[in-house]
């Protein structure tokens, strides 16, 4: 499978890397928001995109364009994200192009799903929470990244 794995720098990225056993069995391209993170995924394809959050409009536009371009050129069969905004953008574009899309809400969201996670429940094929008490008809709990 051609997988596109997207996460912003920080906790999101660290959580994504903990899915490495899955990535190793497939052809994965990583997307994140800081070039030096490529050191952590040596031997795999790595792409840097501009970071974005909902407070900075200009960056958000750049991020959407960049993610869209990469999703179109890579044509992944599966898109997985552990957050945040860039991952949600990737999942939205991927869904339009027929990829299987998976959102894993950060383990940091221990009392409620993140805002991005809530949006993901309307877009992604599958949304995971990492806390059993947050599971619902739209959100799956099946283990965590620990």
């Amino acid at each position, binding site marked *: 499978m051609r997988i596109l794995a997207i996460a912003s720098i920080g906790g999101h990225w660290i959580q994504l890397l903990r899915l490495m*056993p899955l990535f190793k069995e497939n052809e994965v391209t990583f997307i994140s928001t800081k070039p030096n993170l490529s050191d952590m995924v040596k031997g795999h394809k790595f792409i840097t995109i501009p970071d974005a959050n909902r407070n900075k409009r200009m960056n958000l536009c750049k991020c959407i364009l960049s993610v869209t371009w990469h999703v179109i050129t890579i044509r992944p069969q599966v898109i997985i994200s552990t957050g945040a905004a860039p991952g949600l953008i990737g999942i939205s574009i991927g869904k339009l192009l027929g990829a299987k899309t998976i959102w894993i809400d950060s383990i940091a969201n221990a009392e409620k799903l993140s805002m991005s996670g809530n949006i993901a429940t309307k877009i992604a094929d599958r949304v995971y929470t990492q806390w059993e008490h947050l599971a619902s008809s739209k959100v799956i709990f099946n283990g965590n990244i620990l």
Partner: protein
Amino acid sequence: MIFITTGTQEPFDRLIETMDDIAGQYPDVHFVVQAFHSHYKAKNFEVLEFLSAADFSDYMDKAELIISHAGMGTIISALVDSKPIIVMPRLLKHNEHRNEHQLATARKFEAMGYLNVAYDEDELKNKFKNLWPHNVKPLHKIGGTASDQLIESLRTFIK
């Protein structure tokens, strides 16, 4: 060596200022401090803006105690390396984050017995004084990858 880190997204002056006060009382202890866009000027240690992944992991490795914000990147790294850690959550009321998820993280991980939590500056000073140096010990260790349950669930879904 004590490694203090506040992540790469936003400043966290409250943590740096409190640790600077503490560092003033422990002149013999070596502090390595990473803080993004700090406005506070520390008197008792040098502050590094950003660390490479390799440097971060090197400092994690050498640290006897980690003091950090309640960010998952640092928490997971500390648990993988089985390092003692005190976290102080960023709070919305101080504009340190966009919501209270660090408080939620801190409470849950504290309840599981995985880490020490200081909910404010005084508690950080007290916890530090009680732990350093003789009571510092790791509380929990995790493996290098996600739970088999999650990996297997994803594996089945993408087939």
